[in-house]
């Protein structure tokens, strides 16, 4: 039981590390491409194509170059987390009402102030939605980490499957499913919390 | 033809129509008019049972609509709405013959009917029958909206502000066409509007409503000569009652000139001017206060250097403007005397209320001399 708890924590940490790295890379990248729109199409196309590579295959291919272990897993998680984060940050910022930007400029804000005081706060709910999708995806892909010698809840599932031991499988599968669902709900709550009071209308999801 | 008997429509916390009694004889064009929220749409939709009355009855040719199958009932009643609502997935031909198709008319007859209707409004069927709604202008689309309602030769048609969203020119010509169609086909028509000019122009009888009640039912002439009370009088408007025209600059201006905001991009501005076929636009702020103007030549010249309209407005000589309280004569004198192409009209807060152009002046003059003239 203690084992499972440790694995669960590890699983969460690995996923969070992947998403965290994706944030560090993805948000500046997204802001950059809002300024250079020609880059935007290209970046989106690249992340879109990356997304079609089966996670198992990317994991395996990276293993050949980065070796066995958690570092390979985290890099893979980062790659898959990039798309939702970049896409949502980009659409969040570019979707802001032009009048609002005008108002900000009119009040004498610099580009940086505009970004910090207007664009990011208004786009925050959309960015948070990207983070939520990224986190849930990462938790899913992290279960495959066991294949390349990584940690997390994949290990009992995978080993259980080899020896056809249902209780061992479930001891990994149930917590993995639960943390994914809890993350989804928790981050959705957070998303609502960061939505400014004045703009609490439900927007349709698009993938 | 249509009879409302003690009709009431109450919502939880609001009575939309209070005890309506009204009889509409065969072949009449009745216009329902009144301020926003007075219950016009509700009244109209109770006829084809898109809304069910709370109490009272509605009869069409002495049949209580409540006893009729709503789907069958609606196929016998033409229906035109302000948002037009053409089916974007169907061609013009398919749009017009929806009800005949629902009624199972043979293909040959349907096609003949579509062509006949299109020709009736001067739209060449060879050109338009196979187009899609988004390939038509707003005015043409609503023309199809009207034809679609007429297609199955219904004895009754309902129109809810059908021309409300159109520009003044398209509105005017559709009104003329409707008047024309009505005098030819004599279909009983209930027409909703809140434009008094439209009501006076089209109606055999006008029904003025306020807060769910009928205030006056009268022919346009009677309405103008004997408004039932102050509400009706103020609704008709002072100028019309005086009968004496061309007193104020307001009467010779275009009420809705083409305007842009300063943050609009140049390309967008250029496209707008092309679309509206104007060579100058007025720049206004959110409160519609006049900031300046931009000519198409300036736009063309500066499109490399500047990004928004705001950056290039007012390069042309300063605008001469006039207050809305001024008389028509002052506007004439200014335009003729200073050789102006146009003259913006502002109220006391500098809010743009209209634009006098040489054209608007001439047509106002013409209608004062010869009465309302068509296109």
């Amino acid at each position, binding site marked *: 039981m203690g084992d499972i708890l440790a694995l669960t924590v590890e699983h969460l940490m690995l996923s969070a590390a992947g998403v965290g790295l994706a944030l560090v890379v993805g948000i500046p990248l997204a802001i950059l491409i809002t300024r250079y729109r020609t880059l935007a199409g290209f970046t989106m196309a690249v992340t879109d*194509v990356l997304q079609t590579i089966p996670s198992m295959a990317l994991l395996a291919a990276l293993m050949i170059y980065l070796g066995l272990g958690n570092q390979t897993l985290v890099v893979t998680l980062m790659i898959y987390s990039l798309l939702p984060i970049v896409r949502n940050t980009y659409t969040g910022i570019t979707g802001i009402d032009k009048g609002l930007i005008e108002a900000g400029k009119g009040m004498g804000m610099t580009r940086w102030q505009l970004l910090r005081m207007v664009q990011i706060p208004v786009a925050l709910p959309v960015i948070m939605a990207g983070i939520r999708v990224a986190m849930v995806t990462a938790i*899913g892909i992290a279960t495959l980490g066991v294949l390349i010698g990584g940690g997390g*809840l994949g290990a009992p599932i995978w080993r259980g499957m080899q020896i056809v031991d249902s209780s061992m499988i479930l001891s990994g599968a149930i917590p993995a499913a639960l943390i994914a669902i809890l993350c989804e709900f928790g981050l959705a709550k957070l998303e609502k919390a960061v939505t400014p009071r004045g703009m609490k209308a439900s927007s349709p999801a698009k993938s | 033809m249509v009879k409302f008997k003690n009709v009431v429509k109450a919502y939880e916390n609001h009575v939309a129509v209070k005890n309506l009694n009204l009889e509409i004889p065969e072949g009449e064009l009745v216009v329902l008019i009144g301020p926003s929220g007075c219950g016009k749409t509700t009244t109209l939709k109770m006829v084809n049972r898109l809304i069910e009355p709370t109490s009272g009855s509605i009869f069409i040719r002495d049949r209580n609509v409540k006893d009729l199958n709503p789907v069958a009932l609606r196929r016998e009643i033409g229906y035109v*709405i302000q948002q037009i609502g053409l089916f974007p997935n169907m061609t013009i031909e398919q749009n017009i013959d929806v009800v005949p198709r629902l009624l199972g008319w043979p293909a040959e007859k349907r096609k003949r009917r579509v062509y006949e209707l299109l020709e009736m409004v001067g739209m060449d069927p060879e050109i338009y029958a196979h187009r899609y709604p988004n*390939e038509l202008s707003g005015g043409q689309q609503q023309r199809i909206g009207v034809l679609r309602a007429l297609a199955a030769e219904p004895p009754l048609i309902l129109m809810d502000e059908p021309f409300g969203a159109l520009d003044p020119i398209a509105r005017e010509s559709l009104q003329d066409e409707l008047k024309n169609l009505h005098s030819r086909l004599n279909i009983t028509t209930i027409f909703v509007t809140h434009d008094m000019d439209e009501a006076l122009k089209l109606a055999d009888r006008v029904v003025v409503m306020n807060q769910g009640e009928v205030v006056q039912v009268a022919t346009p002439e009677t309405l103008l000569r004997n408004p039932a009370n102050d509400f009706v009088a103020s609704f008709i408007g002072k100028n019309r009652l005086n009968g004496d025209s061309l007193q104020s600059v307001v009467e010779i201006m275009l009420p809705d000139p083409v305007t842009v905001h300063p943050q609009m991009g140049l390309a967008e501005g250029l496209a707008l001017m092309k679309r509206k076929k104007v060579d100058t636009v007025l720049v206004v702020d959110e409160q519609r206060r006049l900031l300046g103007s931009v000519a198409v030549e300036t736009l063309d010249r500066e499109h490399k250097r500047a990004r928004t309209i705001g950056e290039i407005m007012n390069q042309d000589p300063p605008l001469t403007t006039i207050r809305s309280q001024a008389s028509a004569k002052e506007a004439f004198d200014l335009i003729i005397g200073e050789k102006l192409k146009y003259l913006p009209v502002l109220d006391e807060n500098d809010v743009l209320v209209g634009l006098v152009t040489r054209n608007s002046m001439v047509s106002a003059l013409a209608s004062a001399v010869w009465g309302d003239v068509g296109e």
Partner: protein
Amino acid sequence: MLWRLRFGVMWVSDFIDFIRSNLDVAAVATYQHLYLSFGSVLLGMLIAVPLGIWLSDKERLAEKVLAVTGTIQTVPGLAFLGLFLPLLGLGVVPSMTVLFLYSLLPILTNTYTGIRGVNPAVVEAGIGMGMSPRQLLFMVKLPLAFPVIIAGIRIASVYIVSWATLAAFVGGGGLGDPILTGIMTADINFILMGAIPAALLALAAGWILGMVERLATPRGLRG
């Protein structure tokens, strides 16, 4: 460390030789992969499209159903296979069941929102002209929602094709098999033999259904 890695430069010609000599393996895996993915998406369509239509005028219920499918969506694939193993055992059946469940959300969401997104003025015109609910659905709502529904099927197909590699874990076959072999033997040739066709299939599915989407868009709706 469990495996010793075989590093080294992978020459394209080596890889081509490898594929040539293992063509039968690659062909079988690709066939199984297609079968798994399209089988589950087809099943997903058969359930989710009618369900989405049926839910389109039941807002309260629809929200609940969408929440449930949304929750299903978040469960990790491997965990899902693990949860079903005691029930469905190994092989194609549990693999397709899981993939089918994943395909539901995008198809259902798009069917539902596509139909509800039809311009209310057009719907009012249809009702006002005397269309029965069924006529309104088939003459107006479905044709107008069609591109959105196809988009849902496209989104589902693209990632079901990618996720179908997971079937290898429970002996369901498909392109996950060579990838798994490659991981076990640390052989990049096997990994690529699974990964490249899988990615190409996903891209092709996206491209083809994107075409269908464009063709299915009524001319009157195109920009």
